[in-house]
């Protein structure tokens, strides 16, 4: 087990380094520097600016300095556009918001997705099964950038129940629509995976044995079906988490929640390279870490996995 974790960690570290170097190289290779503005900057000022941001150094030195700052001090450097703010400040500002509604949406998607999938499988070919399948198909064609406008249309413009955007930590009504918009498609996917893997396990030999020896239905489900059936769901959670963070770009834009997704889009539109890279690296690190966690959990639960 320990060697497995160590080996996974050894793979995770070069992945992260590749991500950092790749995004840095992309930034460097891009035509036009961050200070190519509409207004021509005098060469002396340009030289000063480049010296301030370390852009006058050779490329290899720049990569090395950037890597050193990121790895040792967790410092992503200053923003190229907002002169008085560092990338760390921008991330510290938006990330808690993204994490708040992201975590709630994640929990909602997992809990209700699994519940719906289990209900559908145990009531195979009954109305709740059709309902679950219907939701799964519907959610496939309603990604968050389609769902968000529809939600605002119905709940804000037509019914006037919920605010169409904004963010207050202590007011749950600002969180409701972002969470629904973000969670729905994952809820549906999780329900679909849970349902099909439950159906498979329900037909397995050991379940028939458990039923034959007279175990009540709920005991069979709880102690013999649920655990093997949830393994495929677990392996889906890693990618889900990533897509949820990516999905937050739409949520932040549409609901003006002020999370990290908005900073990313603004940075992209303003060519604020350092902010883009900082966010990309942060998300990449989270992704790799989360996948690592899921893999370890998987290996721990599933005895068939050898490490």
């Amino acid at each position, binding site marked *: 087990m320990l060697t497995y974790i160590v080996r996974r960690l050894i*793979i*995770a570290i*070069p*992945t992260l380094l*590749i*991500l950092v170097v*790749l*995004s840095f190289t*992309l*930034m460097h*290779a*891009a*035509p036009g520097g961050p200070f190519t503005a509409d207004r021509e900057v005098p060469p002396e000022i340009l030289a000063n600016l480049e010296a301030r941001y370390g852009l006058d150094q050779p490329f290899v030195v720049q990569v090395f300095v950037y890597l050193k700052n990121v790895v040792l001090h967790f410092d992503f450097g200053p923003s190229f556009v907002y002169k008085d703010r560092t990338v760390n400040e921008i991330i510290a500002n938006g990330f808690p918001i993204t994490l708040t509604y992201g975590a709630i949406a994640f929990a909602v998607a997992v809990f209700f997705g699994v519940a719906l999938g289990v209900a559908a499988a145990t009531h195979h070919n009954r109305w709740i099964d059709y309902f679950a399948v219907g939701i799964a*198909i519907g959610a*496939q*064609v*309603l*990604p968050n*950038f*389609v769902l*968000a*406008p529809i939600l*605002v*249309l119905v709940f804000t*413009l037509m019914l006037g129940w919920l605010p*169409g955007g904004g963010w207050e930590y202590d007011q749950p009504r600002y969180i409701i629509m972002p969470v629904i918009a973000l969670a729905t498609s994952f809820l549906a996917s999780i329900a679909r995976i849970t349902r099909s893997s439950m159906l498979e396990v329900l037909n397995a030999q050991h379940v028939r044995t458990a039923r034959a020896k007279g175990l009540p239905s709920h005991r069979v489900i709880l102690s013999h079906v649920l655990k093997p059936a949830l393994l495929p769901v677990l392996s889906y959670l890693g990618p889900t988490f*990533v897509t949820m*963070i*990516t999905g937050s*770009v*739409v949520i932040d*834009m*549409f609901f003006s929640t002020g999370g990290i997704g908005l900073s*990313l*889009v603004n940075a*992209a*539109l303003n*060519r604020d*390279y350092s902010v*883009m*890279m900082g*966010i*990309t690296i942060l*998300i*990449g690190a989270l*992704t*790799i870490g989360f*996948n690592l966690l899921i893999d370890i959990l998987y290996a721990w639960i599933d005895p068939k996995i050898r490490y």
Partner: protein
Amino acid sequence: MKTQADIAVVKGRSLWSEARRRFYKNIAAMLGLIVLILVSLFAFFGQYIAQFPIDEIDFNVIGQVEQEGGPSIKNGHYFGTDDLGRDLFARVVQGTQVSLIVGFVGAFIAVAMGTLYGAIAGYAGGRTDNIMMRVVDILMAIPSMFVIILLLVMFGRSMAMLFIGVGMLSWLDMSRIVRGQTLSIKNKEYIHAAQAMGVSDVKIITRHILPNLWGIVAVYATLLIPLMILTESFISFIGLGVQEPLTSWGALISEGAGTMQYGTLWQLTFPLFFFVITISAFYFVGDGLRDALDPKER
């Protein structure tokens, strides 16, 4: 009792005609196919029906789009106009073209790259396979959506960059699937026979392995297209996709969502309608193909 001769008369059914028969029987898949044909016809011939070019501003309706700009046969704006007074019918036609092209080209790039990579890795086996798949593992851990955004911003927003970025997003999955299939095909007897006869590796891959992968590749390609369209729409929605006056479903939905509080709902509903029916149609066709072609489901 049947004699030998009676059996010989019965026409043999090939794997493909069997699959075709199963596909034709699948009502949802056939409906999906019909919808796709209709949407494609709309995309290709819609511009001849449209009364206005995509970027012409109709000064008769501008300023009072809410009252005058609604869908009407009389003034030629079949789907109404957008908030700038441009004909929405022409713009939806154009957006459909862009979205379909991105879907097909993106899926083609992903399928071509993934199939080739996976087939080579699976056929080579051993250390080469190990290294190639480790590279895929590493690339998979990188959040590709962010890399696409990075690419689009840094090298300018162009259709070519969009194709490359969107295609790059999903060749990884494809290569894994193809590698797995190749591993099982490569131990079949006819491959050994070809090897024994001295056929070169390149020829074995192109002549004997790739044709046998065609079924699974077709299924995943069909399921990839809606994914590509979704990705492109997402990128266009956040404003990094195709540029004005060109448009796509994502951009149109984004515009429609931005103006819906002014009561110009048609701006949201028409692109949304085409988006939803096309994506569902692709999924239905893909599922139908999988049921028809996947040996496991039989």
